[in-house]
């Protein structure tokens, strides 16, 4: 039977595009025959703005790149500048950074899983449950740095403030609670027949396509590639910590969801060790306000919650970066989107997009 395809603009104002993302899909009935992504609604030209500000002044910008993982962005940028200027961060600062980055991963994955379930049509329940945990983590951020979302916590040479005394007991209490909470989520979500029916073998991303299209983070791991910058290229003190890389075997939405669930557990495990091993001493080294790194170029990367986050910074010896480039995982993870959604129904495409976990602040920058 011959049918007439029609074009639907999913977004920029759509409840499940996680921001101002627009997916232009050509539908034949409900099946997608063509898809094109249109982004840039949130483009702030951060890379240009950063060129006219000093290295320290650029840290708040990184908060706003991926506003759901501000700590990770801070960390990647500070590492890049430290690598450029040859600054060593004291051990306590390193551990604090790891603690914050892993807390941020917990918060981000909580949000990612909750929003993903929302896309699957669960009426906000997993979303709200996940927000309960995220709330505690944001409280911890507030204790440490004074802000909850755009934390601006890390500094070149360490962190802005050492943690207050009430941070440790609160963090310990949270960590004690987390494993059973995660088990609760697993019992509620992983075994849900409808969820499995919706996500199994949907939005399959084969490993070779995943590697070829440069995806990273849980999306790459969901496709069965054991790749994690924390293990492959350890930074801070990750080489002293014990953790595993969760990988899926099928590369479907369910696997990406599983990987995130398991990463929650691994992050808790890392945090338990890091809190135990937290050494004394200064949390940061003094760095001149108008830092003038020697001319050169450097690429520093971390395993951000959404994937490989890298900062490519070129210095010409002045207090401003000459070039400041962000390798944004959300953006690059969208590369295989078209291959993943063509042939699926509109509902599945929404789920697939949700399983990639994008933040539009990071996609558009």
């Amino acid at each position, binding site marked *: 039977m011959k049918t007439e395809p029609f074009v639907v603009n999913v977004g920029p104002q759509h409840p*499940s595009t996680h921001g101002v993302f627009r997916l232009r899909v050509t539908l034949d009935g409900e099946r997608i025959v063509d898809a094109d992504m249109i982004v840039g609604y949130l483009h702030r030209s951060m890379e240009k703005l950063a060129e006219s500000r000093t290295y320290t002044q650029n840290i708040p910008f990184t908060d706003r790149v991926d506003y759901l993982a501000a700590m990770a962005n801070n960390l990647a940028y500070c590492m890049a500048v430290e690598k450029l200027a040859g600054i060593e961060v004291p051990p306590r600062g390193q551990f604090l950074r790891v603690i914050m980055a892993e807390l941020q991963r917990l918060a981000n994955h909580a949000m990612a899983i909750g929003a993903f379930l929302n896309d699957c049509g*669960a009426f906000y329940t997993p979303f709200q449950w996940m927000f309960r945990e995220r709330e505690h983590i944001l409280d911890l951020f507030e204790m440490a740095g004074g802000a909850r979302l755009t934390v601006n916590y890390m500094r070149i040479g360490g962190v802005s403030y050492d943690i207050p005394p009430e941070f440790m007991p609160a963090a310990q209490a949270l960590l004690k609670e987390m494993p059973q909470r995660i088990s609760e989520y697993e019992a509620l979500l992983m075994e849900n*027949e*409808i969820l499995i*029916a919706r996500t*199994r073998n949907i939005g399959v991303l084969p490993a070779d396509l995943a590697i070829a299209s440069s995806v990273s983070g849980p999306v790459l791991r969901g496709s069965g590639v054991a790749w994690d910058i924390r*293990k492959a290229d350890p930074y801070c003190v990750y080489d002293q910590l014990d953790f595993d*890389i*969760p*990988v899926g075997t099928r590369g479907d939405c369910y696997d990406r969801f599983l990987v995130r669930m398991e990463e929650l557990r691994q992050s808790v495990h890392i945090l338990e060790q890091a809190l135990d091993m937290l050494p004394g001493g200064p949390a940061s080294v003094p760095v001149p306000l108008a830092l003038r790194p020697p001319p050169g170029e450097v690429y520093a990367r971390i395993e951000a919650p959404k994937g490989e986050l890298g900062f490519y910074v070129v210095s010409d010896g002045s207090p401003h970066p000459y070039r400041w480039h962000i390798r944004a995982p959300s953006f690059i993870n969208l590369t295989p989107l078209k291959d993943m959604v063509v042939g699926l129904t509109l509902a599945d495409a929404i789920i697939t997009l949700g399983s990639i976990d994008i933040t539009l602040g990071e996609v558009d920058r």
Partner: protein
Amino acid sequence: MLFLAEWWDLRDLGNPVGKFLEVLSDHGPGWLPYVASGIIGCVAIVLFLVPSQMVIVWAERRLIGRIQARLGPNRTGPWGIFQTIADTIKLLAKEAITTRHVDRWVFWLAPIFIFVPGITVFAVLPFGEGMVLADLNVGVLFLAAVGSINAIIVFMAGWSSNNKYALLGAMREVSMLISYEIPQVLTLLGAVVFTNTMSLSGVVQWQDHYNTWLVFLQPLALVIYLISAGVEINRSPTDIAEAESEIVAGYHTEYSGIKFGFFYAGEYFAGFAIAAVVASLYLGGWTFWGLEEWVPGWLIFLGKLYLVFWLFIWLRGTLPRLRADQLMAFTWKFLLPLTLVNLFVGGLEVLIWQENDLSAGLVLPVFAIINLALAVGLTVAWARFLGHGGPDSRPRRALLMKEVGAIVYGQEP
């Protein structure tokens, strides 16, 4: 029965109404009581539905709040009970936008007609003994007939909006209706086979007479009816026609202000209708094994109605949504065969019972046990047969790797 049948005996609200009609016929023209009884019935139904909807919307939001580890509306009035009133005022004050390219007439008529099925169903539902507006002797068929009108109104809204999401929603609703009408009617037929009547008050009286509820005799039918009715009234998790995360708001994407409010209220009215049907057909209606002699039957009926509606609320807060084609396959491959078997077994049982003239006290418990076992067994067996519970629908865990670089794609653990 302890019926006093005085006008102040509120266990049957028909008593004061009957008294009033008597007074009317004594003093007025002959046609007056006839018209007045109709008007009183209609007004009573609306008077019950509107406040019910207001309270239930609030209760649903509070309950969903509990399910979702939050508080729910708690600012307007004690425990937030005036939230729905505040929302209604807000909706009334908002602009009801009519976009330029809509089919104006149909666009405006759809939100008005959306109430028709939900309210009309209550005409044949017995609120208590004798408390029924029109005791139609084909009441069960009437339910199915009125329910099918719903899809046309949804289609009117979706098509006239001139919006692609609305059109997709309307398309989904119409296709869902065609599919889910069949198991729905067949399950209702199961009740009819047992009770040998199509009148709803007849069904309730049958349950009263045999001191049993049809839920014990037709457990599978109840579950199937709840699922297919849930699809028809568009409540999450089966809200395929307005699936928020997929097609924004489905057929009412373009509606704003009180026009949207009408759809919202209409959804609840339809939900009440379904809950009332379930309460009457399967849960004994206004009877409660003798309690109805002390407590007004209509209170028992309403209690059951809200209990069934609470089930819908619970489901909404718990389950994710199936995809449209999966939901469609579910009815044809899963529900339809089961309803046919259920109907066949029900018929067979009634035949055995009637032909051999067995005593009801003996056969009904046996039938109840058989049917329950059959319901569980059939569901599990048929699910297995269709491949559920196989390796593809079993939960898995992520593999844990210590080293980087390995590629395990396609390897099953």
